[in-house]
């Protein structure tokens, strides 16, 4: 076999190997969804399903080795905090959501979203107090499912708060946070997008890059089953 033929075969083999590796990488990237976390059954007296979430200013090395400094939602599953934004809830039922909000305020780009919408009673509780809106400048994040008409603004922890959480998963029993609760009704089965409407992606253009544009941090799906 001549040297030219060897070179051609070598280059061809290298091209094939590189192509396969790129294909595998893209396939892995395109299909790597966070795990789906099912809502738990709420107590019988209340009925429906429950979701317990937290929002962290920096999700931390443990939950996101690739982006430990990204802001993120985290969900409680089987006694553990895990990073996922795909939640499964039952159709035609009430979902009770508790969010421990550990992040500081960023402010809403559109103050319209400072009003609670689409929840039962059009309200939420913040640290036990029932409210129907917040100061848009105090918003840290939102939990919004536009297709369901659900918009819930989450007020931030004051900048000067003691015991602020530096890295997730944060601990509600010891670290400064706001506790937000609300309930909403689900309808027919389907996959519904939810997202944060606060431009909270630090260091990205208009705050809407990075964690705001990546599934598994500040947006995901509500799977109604």
């Amino acid at each position: 076999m001549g040297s030219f033929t060897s070179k051609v075969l070598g280059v061809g083999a290298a091209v094939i190997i590189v192509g396969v590796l790129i294909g595998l990488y893209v396939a892995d990237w395109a299909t790597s969804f966070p795990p789906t976390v099912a809502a738990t059954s709420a107590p019988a007296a209340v009925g429906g399903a429950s979701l317990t979430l937290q929002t962290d200013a920096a999700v931390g090395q443990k939950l996101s080795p690739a982006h430990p400094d990204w802001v993120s939602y985290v969900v409680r599953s089987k006694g553990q905090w895990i990073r996922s934004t795909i939640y499964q809830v039952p159709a035609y039922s009430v979902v009770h959501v508790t969010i421990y909000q550990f992040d500081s305020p960023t402010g809403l780009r559109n103050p319209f979203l400072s009003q609670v919408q689409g929840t039962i009673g059009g309200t939420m509780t913040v640290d036990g107090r029932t409210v129907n809106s917040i100061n848009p400048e105090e918003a840290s994040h939102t939990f919004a499912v536009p297709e369901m008409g659900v918009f819930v603004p989450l007020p931030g922890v004051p900048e000067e708060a003691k015991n602020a959480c530096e890295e997730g998963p944060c601990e509600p029993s010891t670290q400064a946070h706001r506790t937000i609760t609300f309930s909403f009704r689900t309808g027919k089965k389907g996959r519904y997008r939810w997202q944060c409407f606060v431009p909270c992606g630090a260091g990205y253009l208009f705050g809407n890059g990075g964690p705001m544009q990546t599934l598994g941090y500040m947006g995901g799906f509500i799977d109604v089953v």
Partner: protein
Amino acid sequence: MSAPKQTEMSEPNHARRFTILWLVACLIGVPIVIWVIGPELGPGTGTDQAAGQSTDATVLSAVATPVFLLVVVYLVYAVIFFRQPSDGALEGPAVRGDAKIQTTWIAVTSAIVLAVAIFGTVRLEGASGAGSGSGPNPLTVPSGPRLPVQVIAQQWAFTYRYPTYGGVETPHLVLPVNTTIELNVTSLDVIHSFWAYQLGVKADANPGVNNVAFVKPTRIMGFEVRCAELCGIWHGAMFDPHGKVVSVPAFKAWITAARVAYAPATAVLPPYSKTYLPEPTRRGG
């Protein structure tokens, strides 16, 4: 001794035969385009603008049909009648340029393209030409009263503000029938595009720009709103199927209820403005 008589195969008059075939095809095809296909062309008749666009699409298709048929009929004709016979040993004679045909072709097609361009431009800028929005200073403004409605795009939802009703903002677009609407389209962040297909309106939503488009709904109906500009991870979900055109009394009842329902949000909204450029606050930037 007289020379032997040469017998030649008599060629038919291809030009005349082809012209007749083409005319027959046009007589069949153009009416089909106008009366059968035309009514099925979008976006429908729900607004003056949508109806105008349907008419425009029908006119353009009808104009294009003879040209399309000219090419197709010629191809079919050539395949059938200029085919080399199976026992033919030679290829046909080379066809050289024909100044008359070439000049005619260029002149006719240029005239058609120019006419179509002028027709489209006039229709786009005409009284019922919602088109793609005309920027902050439209060349043509419909006469009579108009209801201003602001379309605010953001990653990733549209919201709507009604400046003549206390500046209330709503998550869905509701419009009164038989009313000229002045849509003021803008964005709070990146480039979006407001597209309400059934209304016949598609207008770019650019940050810091007020893009004006007009629409006059003529019947009660539902419509969809979607973003037509790739704007990030949830671009595909920037879709709202709950747009409505309702009667004037129903609109007044709805906007009255909306002003009550969204009073907490209205209280903290900035004063109505044609554009908003909210500064990236503590985090973004």
